[in-house]
C-alpha cells in the first residue's frame, strides 16, 4: 500500500470576500487577480511546503501535488517549482505529481528536462503523473482543446522516449517537432520515473492507461461509480491479455483526523468553506458553462460512470452537502478510532494499491492540518498498512503494474521493460 497526502493549496484570503462559504459566486475565470496579495501568497506557499515536510516525517509515502491555472482554489500553477523544492528539503517520501498538464505545453522538452532534474535532485523519488487538464487550463495557456487528447498522447510518447532512449534524435510529430532532442539530463530512475494517470471523466484516458499499464488514480468520486470505472480498466486489461491488480489503481478522497469527534466534524466542515473549488463538492462556486463545453476537450460520448458525479464544473451533480458526503464515505472525518474502520470500507470496496488522503483544504488552518497529520502518523497510517496487508493491496512500488511481478524480485532485464 502506498499512502499519499494531498491538498489543493487554496489561496486562503479572509479579506477576499470569496472565502469561508460566503455565498459569493466564483465563476471560473471570472475573478480578477487584482485582489491577489503576494505577502499572503508567500506565507501560504511556505505553509504548504512545511506541511509536506511534516507529512513525510509522519510516515506518508507520497507527497502529492497538482496543478491548476488562474484560479484561487489551487496555488500550484507552476507545480514543478514546488516539486523542485520538495526534492531538496525532503528525504524519503516520493514526490507525486498528479499531474503535469501535458496538452498545454507547446514545448514538452521542458517537461523532459524539469522532471529529470527533480528526479535527480530527489535521488529518484519522482512519480510523474499526467493529466489532460480542465477547460480552465486550456484557456489559461491558450492550448487548443480540440487537440487536447492528441497532444496528450504525443507529448507522453515524446517524453518517455526522451527519458529512456539515448539522444540525439529527431521528433517529427503532428503537434510537436524537434530536430535535436538530446537533453543534458537523464532521470535518476531507470528507465524513467513511474507514471500515473489521475482522472475522473474520460473513458479514452482510462482505456489508454490500461493499455499502457499505467496506474489510474480516481479523484474524489463516489465509491460505486469509481468501482464501475475501474471495471473499464479491468476489462481493457483483459483484452490486452493481463490481469490488473491493486497496483494498477489508486483512489484519492477527503480524510481528516482530529483529537475529538466534535473537533473533527467542525474542521471537516471547512472542506466546503474555502475559496470555491469545483472539485470540492458542496462548495463548487458557479460553474462556467462555456468551460464545460470547451470544444473537443473531452469526447462528448466516451465518458466514464464517474463523470456525472465527479465535479460540478464538468456538468455533474451540484453541491452534495457535507452530510451527504460523510454518508457516502467521500468525506471521512473523526478520531482515528472512527476513521480507520471507514477507510477499511473504502479499501475493501475499491481495492486500490495507492491512496491519497485529501486534507488541509478549504478553510482549514495550518494547525488543523498539523493535528491531522500527527494523528495520521501516530495511528491511522500504521493501521491502514495493516489492513492493506491483510487485504493484499499492493502498490505499484511493490508489484510492477507493467508486469504484475513483485518489484524486488524482477530481473534487471525485466526492469528495463518496466515503466515504458
Amino acid at each position, binding site marked *: 500500500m502506498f499512502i499519499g497526502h494531498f491538498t489543493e493549496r487554496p489561496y486562503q484570503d479572509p479579506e477576499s470576500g470569496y472565502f469561508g462559504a460566503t455565498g459569493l459566486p466564483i465563476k471560473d475565470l471570472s475573478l480578477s487577480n487584482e485582489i491577489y496579495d503576494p505577502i499572503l501568497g508567500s506565507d501560504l506557499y511556505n505553509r504548504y511546503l512545511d506541511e509536506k515536510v511534516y507529512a513525510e516525517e509522519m510516515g506518508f509515502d507520497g507527497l502529492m501535488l497538482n496543478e491548476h491555472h488562474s484560479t484561487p482554489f489551487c496555488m500550484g500553477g507552476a507545480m514543478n517549482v514546488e516539486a523542485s523544492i520538495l526534492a531538496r528539503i525532503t528525504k524519503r517520501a516520493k514526490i507525486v505529481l498528479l499531474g503535469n498538464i501535458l496538452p498545454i505545453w507547446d514545448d514538452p522538452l521542458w517537461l523532459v528536462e524539469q522532471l529529470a532534474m527533480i528526479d535527480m535532485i530527489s535521488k529518484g523519488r519522482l512519480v510523474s503523473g499526467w493529466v489532460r487538464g480542465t477547460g480552465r487550463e486550456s484557456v489559461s495557456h491558450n492550448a487548443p482543446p480540440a487537440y487536447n487528447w492528441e497532444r496528450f498522447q504525443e507529448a507522453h510518447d515524446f517524453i518517455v522516449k526522451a527519458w529512456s532512449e539515448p539522444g540525439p534524435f529527431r521528433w517529427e510529430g503532428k503537434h510537436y517537432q524537434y530536430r535535436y532532442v538530446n537533453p543534458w539530463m537523464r532521470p535518476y530512475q531507470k528507465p524513467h520515473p513511474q507514471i500515473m494517470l489521475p482522472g475522473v471523466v474520460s473513458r479514452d484516458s482510462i482505456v489508454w492507461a490500461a493499455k499502457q499499464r499505467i496506474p489510474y488514480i480516481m479523484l474524489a468520486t463516489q465509491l460505486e461509480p469509481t468501482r464501475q470505472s475501474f471495471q473499464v480498466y479491468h476489462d481493457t486489461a483483459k483484452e490486452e491479455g493481463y490481469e490488473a491488480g491493486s497496483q494498477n489503481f489508486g483512489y484519492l478522497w477527503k480524510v481528516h483526523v482530529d483529537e475529538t469527534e466534535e473537533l473533527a466534524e467542525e474542521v471537516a466542515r471547512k472542506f466546503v468553506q474555502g475559496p470555491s473549488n469545483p472539485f470540492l463538492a458542496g462548495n463548487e462556486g458557479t460553474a462556467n458553462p*462555456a468551460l464545460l463545453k470547451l470544444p473537443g476537450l473531452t469526447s462528448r460520448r466516451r465518458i466514464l460512470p464517474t463523470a456525472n458525479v465527479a465535479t460540478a464544473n464538468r456538468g455533474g451533480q451540484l453541491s452534495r452537502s457535507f452530510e451527504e458526503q460523510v454518508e457516502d464515505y467521500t468525506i471521512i472525518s473523526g478520531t482515528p478510532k472512527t476513521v480507520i474502520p471507514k477507510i477499511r470500507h473504502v479499501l475493501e470496496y475499491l481495492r486500490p494499491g495507492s491512496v491519497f488522503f485529501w486534507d488541509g483544504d478549504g478553510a482549514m488552518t495550518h494547525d488543523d492540518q498539523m493535528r491531522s497529520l500527527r494523528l495520521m502518523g501516530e495511528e491511522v497510517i500504521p493501521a491502514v498498512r495493516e489492513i492493506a496487508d491483510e487485504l493484499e493491496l499492493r502498490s505499484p512500488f511493490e508489484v510492477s503494474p507493467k508486469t504484475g511481478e513483485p518489484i524486488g524480485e524482477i530481473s534487471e532485464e525485466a526492469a528495463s521493460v518496466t515503466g515504458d
Partner: protein
Amino acid sequence: METSRIAETLGILKSEDALAVSEASFKESSLELAGSTIQMRTAGEGKPLLVLHGELGFPGWMNYHETLAVDRKLYAPSHPGYDQSDGIDWMMQVRDLAGWYLEALDDMDLKEIDVIGFSFGGWLAAEMAVMDPTKFRKLVLVAPMGVKPEEGEIYDIFLNLAPDYLKEAIHDSNSCDEFDLICPDEPSPEMLELWEVAREQSCKLGWKPYMYSLSLKHLLHRLKNLETLIVWGKEDKIVPIDAGRIYHESIPGSSIEVMENIGHRPEIEKPNEFTKLITKFLGSK
C-alpha cells in the same frame, strides 16, 4: 453517389414558424470531392454561386438562400468536419481548408464562380481567393473573420455557449423573423450536437491566433482584379467593423457596404435588404 433527401436534417424546416420556404426547393446530397465526402445543398439554375457558412456550420435553408437561388445555381456545402461532412485529419488551419476547397471546385468543374462567405466562411472565401483569384468572378465577404482588427477584439465563441453567441450576433432579435430558426428557445438535441461539432471543427482551425491569420492581410492585395464587396452590420459585436476597414483597404478596388441597425448576421437580420444588395452586386444571369 448522390443520395438525395429532403433536408430535414436539422429539424429546422419542420418548424411551424418556417417562412415561405418550400421543403423541396433545394436538393441535399452527399458528394465525394477532393478525396472526402461532404454534405452539399444545391438549388436553382444559372451562374454558379458558392455559399460558405460560418463558424457554427450550415444554419439551415434560409430566406436568403431561397432568394439568391432565384436566378443562379446555388451551392451550399457544409465544410469538411461540419454538419454531416467528414472531417479531414490534416486540416489544422483555414488555409488548409481553402486549399482543399479549390480542388473540390475543380472536381465539380466550377470555374469563374461567384462566392459569398459569412463570418468564418468569409475568411475561408478570402483565403481561397488569394490562392487562386482567377477561379472566381465576384467575391462577397460578409463580416469576415480572418484579419486582426486594430480596434476591438473578435468575440470569443469558445468561451460562450452557442445560443449566447447567436444572441450577441443579432442586433435586434425581436425584429428578426428567422432568429427562432437559427436559435430556438429549446434547440433540438440534433441542433445542439451540430453546434458542438461545428465548434470543435472551428476550434481546430481557428483557436490560435484566434480567428485570424497574421499573413492574410498582406496577401489580399492579390485580389486587385477580383471585384469584391464587403458587407458589414454597423452594430456587429462579433467581428469589429475595423476588420472591415482593413479588408477594404487591403483589397484594391473593393467596395464596402455598412448596413444600419444590423449586427453580425445581415443575411438573417434583414434578408430582403441584404439579398437586394447582393443581387445588385452580382448582377443578373
